């Protein structure tokens, strides 16, 4: 067959990376070179190469979160040149490829920065606060074994699609990192909207919105002042309409 259309040219990039030894330690930027990178390397594979070099030089590799490397687990979390996940639409860091960069580029890499996400080390933060919000009410209270037949409650395709649009959130926290107030409104709004839209979740909609918003505040997330940076940075393009829905659900709960 014909040779690949992308013959491998390599690039060298300058990385300026946030390093921090622990939660209460001061952080600093360090500069590294990424060598022999091709356009087919993913961003994380590029960092893998840098880390292998660092280890060989007897230095500590850069610590960063990752797992699935296919844009679905929500583990990877880096601010690249000021933008969570690097700013390519609908793309997580692990799905970002080096063809988006050119030889000689300088790249700034930082962790998520938000009051509710303390830094654990280098680029790794603690996002346990997002779990706390779900624990406060992001569920329907069905017991195992208590469910009725899946087709006994019909759900219009429109509603199912709306719920699915909201449910696609991967819980990475980019929305929080992008928000000037460090708010988790898009994350919370998506879950509230998904469940409020479906008949199975509607029953508990009022308690849910109250307790999830309560948890949000307790965890130190800020308030929404309509910057909409969250949707712009969201790798799943979760719509800010779910924030309006969250507000409506909250008002409903107040009125009743």
């Amino acid at each position, binding site marked *: 067959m014909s040779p690949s259309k992308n013959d491998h040219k390599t690039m060298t990039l300058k990385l300026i990376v946030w390093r921090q030894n622990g939660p209460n330690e001061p952080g600093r930027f360090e500069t590294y070179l990424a060598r022999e990178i091709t356009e087919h390397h993913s961003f994380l594979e590029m960092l893998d190469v840098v880390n292998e070099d*660092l280890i060989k030089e007897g230095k500590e590799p850069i610590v960063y979160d990752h797992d699935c490397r296919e844009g679905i687990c929500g583990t990877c979390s880096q601010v690249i040149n000021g933008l969570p996940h690097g700013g390519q639409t609908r793309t997580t860091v692990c799905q970002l490829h080096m063809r988006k960069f050119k030889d000689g580029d300088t790249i700034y890499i930082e962790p998520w920065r938000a009051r509710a996400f303390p830094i654990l080390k280098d680029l790794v933060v603690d996002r346990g606060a997002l779990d706390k919000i779900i624990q406060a009410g992001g569920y*329907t209270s069905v017991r195992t074994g208590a469910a009725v037949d899946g087709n006994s409650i019909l759900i219009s395709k429109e509603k*199912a699609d709306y719920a699915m649009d909201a449910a696609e959130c991967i819980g990475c926290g980019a929305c929080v990192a992008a928000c000037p107030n460090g708010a988790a409104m898009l994350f919370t709004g998506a879950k509230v909207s998904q469940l409020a839209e479906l008949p199975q979740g509607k029953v508990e909609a009022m308690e849910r919105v109250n307790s999830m918003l309560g948890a949000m505040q307790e965890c130190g997330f800020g308030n929404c002042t309509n910057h909409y940076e969250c949707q712009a940075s969201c790798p799943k393009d979760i719509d800010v309409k779910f924030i309006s829905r969250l507000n409506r659900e909250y008002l409903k709960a107040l009125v009743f």
Partner: protein
Amino acid sequence: MILDGKSPTGPIENTWDKHRFDMKLVNPSNKRKYKVLVVGTGLAGASAAASLGELGYNVETFCYQDSPRRAHSIAAQGGINAAKNYPNDGDSIRRLFYDTVKGGDFRAREADVWRLAQVSNNIIDQCAAQGVPFARDYGGYLDTRSFGGAQVSRTFYARGLTGQQLLLGAYSALSRQIKLGTVKLYPRTEMLDLILVDGEAKGITIRDLVTGKIRTHVGDAVVLCTGGYINVYNLSTNARGCSATAIWKACKKGAYMANPCYTQIHPTCIPQAGEYQSKLTLMSESLRNDGRIWVPKKHDETRPANEIPEEDRDYYLERKYPSYGNLAPRDISSRAAKEQCDDGRGVGPGGRGVFLDFRDSIKRLGEDVIRERYSNLFEMYERITDEDGYKVPMRIYPAPHYAMGGLWVDYNCMSNLPGLFVLGEANFSVHGANRLGASALMQGLADGYFVIPYTIGDYLAQTTPGMLKEDAAECKASMDEVEGSVEKLLSMGGKRTPAEFMRELGTIMWEYAGMARSAESLGQAIEKIPVLREEFWEDLKVAGAGSELNQQLENAGRVADFLEFGEMLCRDALNRDESCGAHFRVEHQTGEGEAERDDENFSYSAAWEYKGNGNEPELHKEPLTFENIHYAVRSYK
């Protein structure tokens, strides 16, 4: 030793009901006195922990990720099977049972498969009640699609994100129990040892991945839901953190490892682009519903794909398997792709790829319909390859994907060590030598929601709670052992990184024990792995310290375990001197290159007992008998 799977007897359709009645129950007010340690929060673990917490047990659950929601189940795309027969196309529990046993090439226990098929319908109901937004048709009814290895439409799905939605459902149920205080969660925690008291599993030793602290957790039973070991091939469709560590540590403590050689190579993955590559990305096989697979007929084809006329294309799956065509089961499709590439007709860099072409279905259905069905997959493909699958055919190649083997368990999902239960991909139970698409999600949730809540009670009802205390000698010994091995990993001061060793092991596994195996290739692997293992323990370099977040150290530990486990896999493959399902021994094939089973000699599950490093493990056999389905040659022609 001959192992007994403890299948209930009698007519198969009554076995589970009868067994449920026969099992002992724990009095409701006593349940909170029992502590259950659930390791893993994927579909199997999250559903188990949530259901056990709900029943009133005192549950602790662990995962290595920062949140239970990130377990690798999240990545499943295509869907989940159930025998609902909503489309009225001839499905039934019996047919799902039949397809699964046949798909597994007659190497699974009948009663376990029956139960799986039976509870499959409850799973869909449970998930719908949790608010899982399954795809619906315009009437508001649940929609289904067909998947490889089945002729009925029984796969429920949520866009291309079924695993994500099911896991978020289980995670939400788990979160509810965490809030209620019945379940305590330990994220960023890795299990590194199993603690036994008089041969029964009563605790685990873990490393806190943030602080590096090593600690024991004690309980009355341990439930491992730690996923599959396919990363033994280094490059696979699994997340980077997936490992054999938990099940291997249990194996070293006496739990038997069953059928490790049954490894599934998935036919539709994006081909590897370079040496540095860290993972292979799966393109859901649901794509095979609408995509046609082909390679050029000519060896020296140089025209771009779209300019190759019909007569110069070889739609080899449609040609070889006319009744299943592009939906032939995974093992068959993967081997067929390899054959075409070995024959020099592969496409793309290095010639390791075949086309998956949507041209005809776009013509027939319109691009919008294809977009509606698979847009996230096309997007993912484009991000990785920079090619537009709507315009040029995708290139795909098989990649290691799923582990049918795992710890041996009986009908109760309990291993040979009393008190040690194993669920989901970590056990070996229902898929035999080959798993059908959309059946792993079903199994994980079946085990967690509908099996363990019953079977664990039968065990606990016969034990006294609180047998192991944290200050017991068993705990101290286990902690010392784990601390010792962490120190050893850090002290080598060699030159090669854990990643380099893993790449080398992966290459050995793929070359000598991959899609096609022979006594000769396996023999070579069994020679090479111990050599690499020795080099590992001399030349390893791990940066940083043990008392901090240290990903190199975590990885080194997992590689060390793979270096031992990989050898056992090869020994199992060598012992199984037949071809069956995904296990293809080149010595055993028909004239047409299909797998040839040897039921007379190999109709058993192989359960291996660890006998120390470098020593041959001991083989125990669980004979398989088929009373409800007759052995047949698996044919998809």
